[in-house]
């Protein structure tokens, strides 16, 4: 789960890290008041979970005269399909240098990694090109301290204090990424965390109640699927897909693509799927707009293919499904599953590629 900037800064503040004074506002009038409270000069920042806000006009320096008008414009600005519900109004900080700092999960090394660059306020790729990026495993070994301090500059005690608190934040909030870009070094040699991009591990939300309460879910169908306990992502095509096992479903999407069809979704019913779970999966998959065919691909393991077939047969009877249904069953329970479906007049396939090609054909015919 990605936190918005102001939500991340709340975590910084709670961890004792220095952030600019600011207010979160939800109207242009409130924005104007906030600017006045900050002394008549401030920065307005839209709050959407997407990058490059600055380059795309989502961050504006204002004074108290221009605040209301600029704020009204920012509330109308759409970035990657998202409008901002709040603005963060912050004091202007006098900066000596902008830096890049991130702590992230290093999947390959299976540890946390600190990334630092003297180039801040640009993407990490650009920072790497301009100034290079220092990568150090965390916790930082004493022998590496000098390198880190050389990049950060400023007061040594302030740097060490900040790094300690950030590492603590990552561990105590189950963060997978904390990116501070830019991190400002002030003329006094102190640090100020000017931005925040924080990703929290979804699997740890059960023990992060404050963060779980902030949760922003995906589309309505994605929400319904989440509640039913399977994983679902909308992809916008015309062939609805249901399968078991994330890897197999991914391979199914690839097979449809090869056959010239666009999948409408990713849906993994998960291990041990029973008939009722399959029924719900069919509901969710077919609730999407523009569906021309349904492709079900099951390899029976712990999830028995006949259990899925039973759920599918029930769902198709109950839901009055008008699109062609293509089913591929293999593995445990496939033979019984095929009998169940064929009684209902649903043709089944043994071969995944052949089934995908048929699904693609039927979807094309339905479109004409």
């Amino acid at each position, binding site marked *: 789960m990605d936190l918005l900037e102001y939500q991340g800064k709340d975590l910084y503040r709670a961890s004792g890290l220095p952030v600019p004074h600011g207010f979160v506002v939800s109207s242009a009038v409130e924005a104007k008041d906030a600017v006045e409270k900050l002394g008549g000069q401030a920065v307005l920042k839209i709050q959407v979970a997407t990058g490059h806000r600055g380059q795309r006009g989502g961050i504006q320096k204002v004074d108290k005269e221009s605040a209301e008008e600029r704020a009204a414009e920012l509330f109308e600005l759409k970035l990657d399909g998202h409008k901002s519900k709040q603005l963060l109004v912050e004091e202007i900080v006098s900066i000596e240098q902008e830096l890049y700092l991130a702590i992230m999960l290093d999947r390959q090394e299976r540890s*946390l990694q600190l990334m630092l660059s003297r180039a801040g306020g640009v993407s990490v790729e650009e920072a790497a090109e301009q100034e290079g990026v220092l990568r150090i495993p965390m916790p930082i070994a004493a022998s590496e301290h000098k390198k880190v301090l050389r990049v950060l500059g400023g007061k040594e005690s302030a740097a060490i204090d900040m790094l300690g608190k950030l590492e603590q934040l990552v561990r105590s909030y189950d963060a997978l990424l904390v990116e501070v870009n830019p991190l400002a070094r002030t003329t006094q040699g102190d640090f100020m965390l000017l931005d925040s991009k924080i990703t929290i591990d979804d699997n740890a939300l059960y023990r992060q109640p404050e963060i779980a309460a902030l949760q922003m879910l995906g589309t309505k169908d994605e929400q319904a699927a989440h509640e039913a306990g399977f994983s679902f992502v909308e992809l916008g095509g015309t062939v609805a897909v249901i399968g*078991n096992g994330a890897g*197999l479903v991914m391979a199914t999407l690839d097979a449809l693509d090869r056959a010239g069809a666009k999948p409408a979704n*990713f849906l993994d019913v998960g291990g041990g799927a029973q008939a009722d779970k399959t029924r719900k999966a069919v509901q969710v998959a077919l609730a999407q707009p523009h569906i021309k065919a349904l492709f079900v691909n099951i390899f029976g*393991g712990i999830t028995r293919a006949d259990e899925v077939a039973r759920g599918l047969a029930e769902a198709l009877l109950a839901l009055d499904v008008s699109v062609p249904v293509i089913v591929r069953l293999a593995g445990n329970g496939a033979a019984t599953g095929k009998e169940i479906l064929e009684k209902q007049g649903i043709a089944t396939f043994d071969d995944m590629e052949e089934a995908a090609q048929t699904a693609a054909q039927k979807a094309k015919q339905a479109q004409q």
Partner: protein
Amino acid sequence: MSILVNKDTRVIVQGITGREGRAHAAQMQSYGTQVVAGVTPGKTGQSVDGIPVFDSIRAAQETLTKPADWTVGFVPANFARAAAVEALEAGLNTIVITEHVPVHDTLFVHELAQAKGLRAIGPNCPGIITPGQAKLGIMPGDVFTAGNVGVVSRSGTLTYEIVSHLSKSGIGQSSCVGIGGDPVNLTNLEEALRDFEADPQTKQIVLIGEIGGTAEEYAARELIGSIITKPVVAFLAGRTAPRGKTLGHAGAIITGAAGTVASKEKALRQAGVPVARMPKEVAELVKRLS
């Protein structure tokens, strides 16, 4: 020979009195695995399908005439770390089948396993099987046949799909290890490849990868052709996956330019690894190389 587990492997099932633990302990046993004990706190003295249940791994180890060397854990995600810690502290290797384990818990278990010099596999994985000898996990045993192709995979069901084609084509497997679909794997692709390289029975390796992370790229650039001398065939899932969306597996996400099938395929092909376009093609490529 095989990797990590064989007919002499002695297994404790953690969480054996739960629904999943009970069902899979029985299936592992009927496959021929030596399931010597089960552990569920507070359930000592019970038995599940003739398997004695103990309160703790230590209690089981003290009672057994021949102690166990691996555990397989079927515990809820919020207990997975504690279960793995108990196994490692008692000196056993451990498999974490559980899905949805927080990454920081996995990092903790990884550090402990390293410090103890023990092996852990998972989380969010089907486990490991050495066909005809031992199955430590949840895979359907009848799909697998004994032979000399090692399989390492980030995905469960897709492994069954590909292995069923191998088996039907008369290509048996030395061992098949599912390293899991999470961002952090307790046994990672590199370690599994090194295991197969060191195993005299394994003549070829099948690598089943997917979007997310750079483990396949790393293996292609740093290992295959130098440290890994045995021929490798690959399949990669998620060619058509969108960016920034997690597809089922927590580790299956494309972030920025990293983690795409295109980048993995390019690296693998440069290392001379044939990459199958569809699952059933893997068997054909393996045949061609043998």
